[in-house]
């Protein structure tokens, strides 16, 4: 409907209309912008081609399929130095995602706790949290990563210290966890026969918890009685699984870390590079999240709390029923952009030798094959895709929770 136009122009088309006529003007500007853009792009591409050919290079992603020839210490999927470069890159990407996801989880926990404690009416705790937030926010994350790494590798005992009759160091928690300057070793589950049943039961009890939640909500609505949900859920979570586990004669064993040769073996090895990166990113981002949580809660006007109080709701109920549902809408968008930052910051893995995407594809692969252009482009593209996925998740969330207004 919007395309009806002025009366037909008697003089026909004049060149000056390109600039002065609103109908053509925008087209003109766009065409000029497009041309300028193309010219710049062409200029860059042309330079790149000339430069590459001057060096006798070309653009070729074939290197991804040649033998990588280097080892990666932390690998979530099987990988050996005989595998091709793309697989090394994949191992790196998974490591990036691993530290990003773990980081987001821990950062959220830290951030929420710190944010809420900052609002607590305990003067001392609130102050401590302020100190935490202000110190982590205002110091570069890289410094924190290095500092965490330094703590881990300088102040923890080396595996050697665990050796001998009267060893200088000992393991934690009844000899199940070994904290060394090479990393921390924790027990790893060993799946014996019958363990599948335990896992299934565990999954079923998760389902049961969900069903119970629904049921108890309905019961509450019907009768007004509220059950001690938390404890019941906890019982469902732990009870059946534990029972089956014991009945089946403990099918899931744990392999404990043991000192063997130079190092501990057995158990899961959390390398210091990962721990340092993970902790530093989490604490750093946690400080920002604490601020987000705090201001999110504060943004829900005092009036809401007062109205809830005036209706006789207890503070904890007020928090759960009135403040949090509203605060979440305020909190989640900036929270997600913090997740985005954390993911991008995980590329600082470089500083501590964690083999993430940047250290594999953008590091060793790049400089053993000499394909810097291809590797960098590919790497940026992957990061971009990860970011876009996260931020489209945010947009989706935003659309679903927007408050209805007139």
């Amino acid at each position, binding site marked *: 409907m919007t395309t009806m136009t002025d009366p037909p122009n008697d003089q026909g088309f004049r060149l000056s209309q390109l600039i002065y006529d609103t109908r053509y003007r925008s087209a003109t500007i766009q065409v000029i912008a497009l041309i300028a853009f193309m010219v710049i792009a062409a200029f860059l591409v042309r330079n790149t081609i000339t430069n590459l050919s001057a060096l006798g290079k070309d653009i070729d992603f074939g290197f991804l399929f040649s033998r990588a020839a280097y080892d990666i210490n932390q690998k979530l999927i099987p990988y050996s130095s005989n595998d091709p470069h793309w697989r090394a890159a994949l191992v790196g990407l998974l490591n990036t995602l691993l530290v990003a996801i773990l980081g987001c989880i821990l950062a959220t926990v830290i951030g929420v706790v710190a944010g809420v404690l900052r609002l607590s009416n305990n003067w001392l705790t609130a102050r401590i949290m302020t100190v935490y937030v202000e110190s982590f926010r205002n110091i570069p994350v890289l410094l924190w990563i290095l500092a965490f790494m330094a703590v881990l590798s300088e102040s923890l005992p080396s595996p050697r210290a665990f050796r001998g009759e009267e060893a200088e160091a000992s393991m934690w928690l009844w000899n199940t966890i070994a904290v060394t300057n090479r990393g921390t070793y924790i027990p790893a589950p060993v799946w014996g026969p019958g363990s599948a049943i335990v896992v299934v039961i565990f999954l079923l009890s998760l389902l049961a918890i969900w069903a119970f939640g629904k049921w108890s909500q309905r019961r509450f609505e019907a*009768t007004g009685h509220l059950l001690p949900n938390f404890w019941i859920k906890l019982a469902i979570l732990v009870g059946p699984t534990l029972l089956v586990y014991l009945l089946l004669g403990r099918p899931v064993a744990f392999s404990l870390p043991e000192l063997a040769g130079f190092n501990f073996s057995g158990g899961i090895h959390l390398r210091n590079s990962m721990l340092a990166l993970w902790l530093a990113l989490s604490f750093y981002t946690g400080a920002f999240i604490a601020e987000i949580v705090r201001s999110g809660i504060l943004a829900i006007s005092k009036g809401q709390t007062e109205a809830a109080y005036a209706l*006789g709701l207890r503070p904890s109920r007020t928090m759960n029923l009135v403040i949090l549902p509203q605060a979440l809408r305020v909190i989640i968008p900036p929270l997600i952009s913090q997740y985005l930052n954390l993911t991008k910051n995980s590329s600082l893995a470089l500083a501590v030798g964690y083999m993430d995407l940047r250290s594999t594809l953008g590091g060793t692969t790049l400089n053993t094959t000499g394909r810097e252009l291809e590797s960098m482009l590919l790497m940026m593209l992957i990061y971009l895709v990860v970011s876009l996925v996260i931020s489209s998740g945010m947009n989706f969330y935003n659309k679903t929770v927007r408050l209805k207004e007139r």
Partner: protein
Amino acid sequence: MSQAVERTVDRAKLAVSDEIAVQIINMNKWYGEFHVLRDINLTVNRGERIVIAGPSGSGKSTMIRCINRLEEHQKGKIIVDGIELTSDLKNIDKIRSEVGMCFQHFNLFPHLTILENCTLAPMWVRKIPKREAEETAMHFLRKVKIPEQADKYPGQLSGGQQQRVAIARSLCMRPRIMLFDEPTSALDPEMIKEVLDTMIELAEEGMTMLCVTHEMGFARQVANRVIFMDQGQIVEQNEPEEFFNNPKSERTKLFLSQILGH
């Protein structure tokens, strides 16, 4: 100044019993170094409708907020429905569910529908089953004349409608005392009328009400006492006729000349 309340009120209906609903004895409150309320003494009988007036900053809001413990008083006693307000949490809970309150800015919960706004507290505080709570809610929404909006969200309603929802929401808790803190001052003239009508109806049903307002029309017709506060003190209290026609203190005269002469 704006809308006169047009509806005629049957004053005879507005009975006052002898039972004491709220008693405030020698109450004092400070904000930091600032003494907001000084030696407040006030007794409200069941069924009384009290209008509180006074210049800005005189402590009106603070006083009625003390009555359901949204603010803490620091000296003196407040006894609501026979229960003394101390820092005992149980007492506070009991009093809060007996005393309804409406705010200047409505403070509806924007993430809940109108109906949910009204059923939230009954369900969670009074432990009333949802069905029943919804029936009560619809009852009161009909009473404030917006049953058809039950499934909308507060953001979709006009100010006057929102304030009426806020009143309905308080009523759903079946309070014995209602506090109003300038319920109409954020509204457009048209809407003021809707809200005042609702309040008058409430008064006719014998609700004990304390109402901070500058709607003098309302005060004249409905209140059986007008309290004038200044600088944290109750300067004057009287029946509306007397208060408006024959104010005693200078301060009151000045105030009235401002507010009416307008």
